[in-house]
């Protein structure tokens, strides 16, 4: 996959999350990291038709957000179903890194590091 196409795909997936989801906006950095890690991981597993852990209530909660994301990615971006799984995982990894940057490491939100809720 060319770099420009890779970037465009990451941007498309990110834009959907920012416009349509709420789970990525928890108020503290550690919660955003936890949410991003688990939901993107489960979304990737669903898209790659790998087993997804749904054993605990916490896992099921991540799963429902991941399932919504995976369904919409398939519906809105036909390339998601068409590209090789290794390439898809690379895009999803890029998405996770971009999401972490925009909402955690590069964020201008000064509340993220407040130690209390």
């Amino acid at each position: 996959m060319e770099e420009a196409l890779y970037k465009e795909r990451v941007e498309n997936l990110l834009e959907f999350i920012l416009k349509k989801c709420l789970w990525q906006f928890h108020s503290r950095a550690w919660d955003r990291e936890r949410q991003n890690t688990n939901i993107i991981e489960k979304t990737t597993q669903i898209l790659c038709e790998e087993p997804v852990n749904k054993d605990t209530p916490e896992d099921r909660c991540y799963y429902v957000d991941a399932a919504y994301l995976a369904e919409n990615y398939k519906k809105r971006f036909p390339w998601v179903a068409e590209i090789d799984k290794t390439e898809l995982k690379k895009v999803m990894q890029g998405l996770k890194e971009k999401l972490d940057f925009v909402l955690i490491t590069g964020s201008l939100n000064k509340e993220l590091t407040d130690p209390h809720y």
Partner: protein
Amino acid sequence: MPYHLFKCSECIPEREKHAVIKGHGETLTDALPLGYLNTIPGSISERGCAYCGAKHVIGTPMKDVIHMSHGPIGCTYDTWQTKRYLSDNDNFQLKYTFATDMKESNIVFGAEKILKKNILEAFKAFPNIKRMTIYQTCASALIGDDIGAIAQEVMDEMPDVDIFVCNSPGFGGPSQSGGHHKINIAWMNQKVGTFEPEITSDYVINYVGEYNIQGDQEVMQDFFERMGIQVLSTFTGNGSYDGLRAMHKAHLNVLECARSAEYICNELRVRYGIPRLDIDGFGFEPLSTSLRKIAMFFGIEERAEAIIEEETKRWEPELLWYKERLKGKKVCLWPGGSKLWHWANVIHEEMGLEVVSVYTKFGHQGDMEKGISRCEEGALAIDDPNELEGLEAMDELEPDIIFTGKRPGEVAKKIRVPYLNAHAYHNGPWKGYEGWVRFARDVYNGIYSPIHELASLNISRDEIPQDKGFMTQRLISDVNLPEEIKNSTVLREYTGEYDAMKRLKDRVYPEFPRKSEEVKDVVAI
């Protein structure tokens, strides 16, 4: 995303970091308005105080409770009946308000005695109400009255009553949001875990951050009950005091207004392991998604699908009727804290409105992250605006309507911009499928009211047309519509009843058989 300094605020240069224009190709890492800071001296803010945020927004929607302010009568008067959070017990908490009526002599000699006298009098006057909340105010906080001690004294003397004390004086934060925070944490620390509820379903939720404005909570509860889900508590609209003491027994926290109530969800997750699911109850697509997610969590997807299909079929033709007539209309989305992100994208997609500005009076930077992400490029995002900035923004952006509170709303009317009450609504409920159509109808009525034809004329400046007759709403709204839309036999105006809540009261809910005890334990882990 350049920061934006209003001309009227050039004398308050610190204000520049509180407004941002969403630019092309830029991200939240380029610019983000400051938020949740003390209002800059000289900027006339539109915010409320921390006492108001605790009592008015979160405490008083609880329905079976005597809500008492320990302070001057004005504090209670100004937080009484100013928001339409209904309840299904004949609106007890809206009809009656209580205050200790502190006077100067109490400031000098202390007010604990009159506090106790008032508590006893209130319980005597309403012998069927056994629960009370007491709200500290600036005055009682500054003289150091020990409200907790007095409440405990009364509970010792009257074992059948329970009292919650909220120490959130007006000065306890930069805005009402400080009060939201304080009451969340206080309720968690004092009351959650002190009541054992009856569990009637395999699927149990807390519905959090929902205040039953004009019946919103009852609309959502109707969906949940149709799905066989027990709403153990609602924090706090139409919620009962004891239900909220039992929040620790739910399987899932369904969070609507994260701005006012994410704190308690976070604490419930950490202390009791109950997961937090953020949802949008406004708009067809977001609401359908929310119902699907909740159903998927419990493995009852088909129950959600049945509701979504029935409701969409019934109400979509009416939503589309309004969308055709609202397309391209410009709106300033200027609510308090959470609706800027609940609505920013969905009113664009489902009503065709163009959001030219979002603002928040008491939101934090996290709310701005959500709001800016969800609105379109070019929108002006403002934190804690003052009245002059609001006027300057309306002058520049020329919105067709604004959604805001009644104070800035009345200002907008003066410059002939119609407004809808984003906090207490016009003709709600606005949640649910029918509610969303009612909102679209209110937007339509606001924009196309024939009064604007006359009100926009300045009799000392404009020539008054003598040759034009009265224009109805339809004549104004349909003037440029294609014939097939104008005469569509599919699309139609709102056909619901004046009181949208009436049909819910007669609803008979399906009974779903419970799973075995063994399975139940697994679900409840």
